């Protein structure tokens, strides 16, 4: 069995590429958000919540990317077995949450229709599931990173 002793972290080039790509995607999302907000007339509650969630996700992604960059500059790996385990666990929570979120949105849409209003359309439901699952993913990752539980 080989060890990492006295070896430099592997896949530095790949990590650097992933970090740069992450910053580019974050910047593009932010630019799209700015264009969307400046071109829309009035903002309803659903849209303002979406904007807040997207901002939270972009800031979270930027925080993770800055943290990885800081580690690489210190000669440490951008990610290791603990961060990978943490992300897997957070992903598991996000997957479970997405199922419950989908069920809750179906129930909410039905109750809106039952009360005489218009239910949620497929785009709204899909968007809400993606954004809320992403919040659970980021929230779980930050919580687990703070707690250090990767079992």
């Amino acid at each position, binding site marked *: *069995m080989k*060890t*990492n*002793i*006295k*070896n*430099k*972290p*592997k896949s530095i080039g790949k990590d650097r590429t992933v970090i740069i790509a992450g910053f580019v995607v974050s910047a593009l999302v932010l630019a799209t958000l700015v264009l969307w907000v400046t071109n829309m007339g009035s903002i309803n509650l659903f849209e303002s919540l979406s904007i807040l969630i997207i901002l939270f996700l972009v800031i979270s992604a930027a925080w993770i990317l800055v943290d990885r960059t800081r*580690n690489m500059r*210190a*000669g*440490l*790996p951008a*990610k*290791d*077995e*603990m*961060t990978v385990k943490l992300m897997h666990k957070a992903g598991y929570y996000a997957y479970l949450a997405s199922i419950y979120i989908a069920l809750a949105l179906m129930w909410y849409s039905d109750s809106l229709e039952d009360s005489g209003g218009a239910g949620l359309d497929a785009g709204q439901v899909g968007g809400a599931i993606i954004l809320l699952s992403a919040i659970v993913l980021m929230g779980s990752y930050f919580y687990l*990173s703070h*707690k*250090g*539980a*990767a*079992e």
Partner: protein
Amino acid sequence: MKTRIKEFRAKYDLTQEQLAQKVGVRRETIVFLEAGKYNPSLKLAHDVAKALKTTIDELFVFTRD
């Protein structure tokens, strides 16, 4: 799980960052290992033990908790 990483680190006058560099992990991983909040893989336990010139048995004390 209890560990003696801090004790061995002091013995060889290593900072958490220096040990992290030797092992090839992030400093946070060493912090959580020292605090007993993270159970390492066998490979990581072996790498840390080797970096501190000791054995896994000496370094990690496994309990039922």
